[in-house]
């Protein structure tokens, strides 16, 4: 019985990975000059897929923080 469950789980992964793989492939192709942009585009896409806008904003805030440094992150957080 456990084998069946694993099998059904795999089917789900296959289905999801097929859509995602297609999108990833296209994103990679379109953004091939900028690997960092590919990574960000895929990360953000996954968060959007979960409809988690808060997490998306947090992800972008972290990106901003990384560019600014720790003190600026705090200042930005306080303003929000």
């Amino acid at each position, binding site marked *: 019985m456990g084998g069946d469950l694993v099998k*059904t789980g795999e089917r789900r992964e296959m289905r999801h990975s097929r859509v995602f793989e297609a999108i990833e492939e296209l994103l990679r192709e379109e953004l091939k000059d900028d690997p960092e942009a590919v990574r960000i585009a895929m990360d953000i896409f996954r968060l959007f897929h979960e409809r988690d806008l808060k997490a998306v904003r947090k992800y972008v805030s972290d990106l901003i923080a990384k560019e600014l440094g720790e003190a600026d992150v705090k200042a930005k957080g306080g303003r929000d």
Partner: protein
Amino acid sequence: MLRLKEVEIEGFRAFSKRQKIDLDYDVIAFIGDMGTGKSSILSAIEFALYGTTYEVKERKAIRVEDLVNDFSKSIYIRLVMIDEEGNEYEIVRERKRRGRGRAQLRVNGNLIASGFEEVTQKVIELLGGLTFDDFSRHVLVRREVLDAIIIGQPMERSEAIDRLLGIATLEYAYRNMPLKEVRSVMEDLSLRRDRIRAVLSAYGAREKLLSEIEMLENTIKRLNEKLSRVAEEYKVSKREYERLRSLSEKYENILKKLEEINVLISHAEARIREREELTEISETAVLAHAESLKDELVSKLVQYLAGESAEELKKIEISMDNLELVVSKIKSSLEELERMASELQYEVLELTDQVMELKSRYERVRGRYSDIASELEVLSRLREEYSRIVEREGDIPDLTIKKDSIKKDIESLRARIEYEEALVKVLSQVSKELEVAREIPCPVCEVPIRKEKKEIIKTRLANLQTKVKETLAKIKELERRLEEMERTLARLRELKEQMLDIEVKEREAERLREEYEDVERRYREILEVIEDARGRLHSLLNFIDRARERVRWLEKATSVVIERRRLREYFEKARELKEQLTRLGFDPEHFKRLGDRLLELEKERRMLEEEVKRCEQRRQELLRSIEELDKLEGELNDLEEKLRRLEALKTRLEKIKSTYRVVQRLMRERMLERLVPALNEVFRRVYVHPDYDSLNLKVEIRTVSGQERSMYNLLARRCIDGQWVPVLNRLSDGQRMIVALSLVIALSIMEPHNAAFLLLDEPTPNIDLSCRKALINALSGIMRGDKARQLIIASQNPEYGEIVKQSVEKGNLRGCVYRLSWGGREGPRLEIAFRSG
């Protein structure tokens, strides 16, 4: 692949009482009127699988607790599924109206998962990753999903198809890309950068600041040198000033004393001037006056029996040294005499009161005496009247005896007259009877009386009548006399009674006479005493007035001679103080000039110090400005670097955003390549009419709000002329509904999940009978290719019963038609209208 086997429902939506429904068929139709629970069965399957429903999670029209039947306290749903190998999957979900629920998943009786979330996750895995969203789009097909494809604006339709294709996230990501966050931070940083630039421009050039600092340091050095010179001169002058200040204090003290003495002298001279008439008086004259006044007071005190005070005053020896004391003693002796005069005056007043009281008493006693004398006069007249009556009528006992004798005479005469009247009566009767008869019996003794005696009887009768008249006159006289005698006796008794008080009154009159004579004597004595006291009082008051005048003169004269003595002492003291000043050798002008110079030096020193301090402060400010300048320049560089990095990030995110759009278009094109053939296969089976034979779904690029966007365009080929026409503009509502249904069914068949069942909730409201039949036949035909699949349809249309019956018979399938009707509080009533296989 999992098929539905059976479902048990209790307390869910229309179902209150627990009901078990057999679902182990290839095709099932639930037929019934509105509100009989058709949709509740499909929602119960959805709730069993995912613990929620489309109305709760997607539309948010109701809450989970609203799913509980109004006549139940909780939901109970048990769903059994079965796979190709015969394994049974049992899901049980229970939920109370309030509070969390309980859920379990068992496979062949073995517990695999428990709890709402865990069971839901396992169900998603079992159904090949079929999430709740996927289930709502591809398995449980509702009118809303179909409407979204064929009704509304082009963009909304495109989004609905994207959702069906599972690529709606790309549009969602494009729209919600949080670039605003980056722009907002960049704006903040730009503002800070601009502010720093403004501050830096306000500071000016660094060289200018350094030049000013050097100039300030030279100034400070020059000022410090000048400050040292001033400080040295101040030190020398201060030492000399301190020496002179100690002399100055002594000098000031002497001057102050001298000034006080001068004030005393002027006051003393003023006081002497005030006694103008006594200015030239000698001390000897004052002493003689005091001696004379003292002697007179001693004499007076002795006269008025104040021997002790007189002796005390007498002992005092008068001299210039004790003159003030003498005056004081004289004044107190005079005051003692004034007290005596007051006491004497009080005594006179008291005696006067006594005299007035005696006078009043004398008048009262004398009045009383006059009243009693008047009464005695009246009484003496009564006594004379009494004597006259006694003399005339006799005393009271004599009158009483006489009165009794007259009473007896009257009674005797009345008895006699009574007899005589009776005899007259008898004789009158006999005389009358003898007038008519010769002889009659005597009325008394009955002896015969003859007529011959008639004349005798008449004579005797006449005599008797005369005698009776005389007796009556005598009785009347006696009664008058008796009456007069009784009046006299009553008067005598009255007078005697009144005369009883006469002696008492006479004694009282005598006593009152003696009393008023005594009061009169005492009155005269006190009057004499008062006269004497008034004489003495007058004499004493005269003396006091004169003495008071003399004391006043003595006081003035004493003050003059004493002030003259003091004035001499003040002049002597002033002379001594002036000699002290001369010996001190202090020059106040020199001391003042030195003090002024010290103040000037102090002021100059302070000014120099202030100037040095101000220059130093300015120098420090400039040094801080240079430090601040360095810091701001560093911060400005840092900000500009950050802005450059953020600009790069923003550009990258914008590029990603536009890439999502590009990928969206490419994904749509790719997926449509697979979808369109399947769509046409379904459409041709369902749509049985000859006007349209093919569908096409294309992606077109359009410009919306200045931006290029890819959108879906659904086309149908018209058989008459072979033209592709837009479905939404040309086809009827029913035709469009068949197109939407074909699209959904094609996608459902294409999607690689494990749910081998398709649930249609009232999918064909505007579709004609032939198309409905074709739809069921088509789906049955499609499902014949995969034996595991089930079709469950819920509809108000009773024709579906017959359509399903014909379809399963034709296709050699297992089918069942349930007819639902309203069953009151216990929930829907289910009847099997048809069953096969």
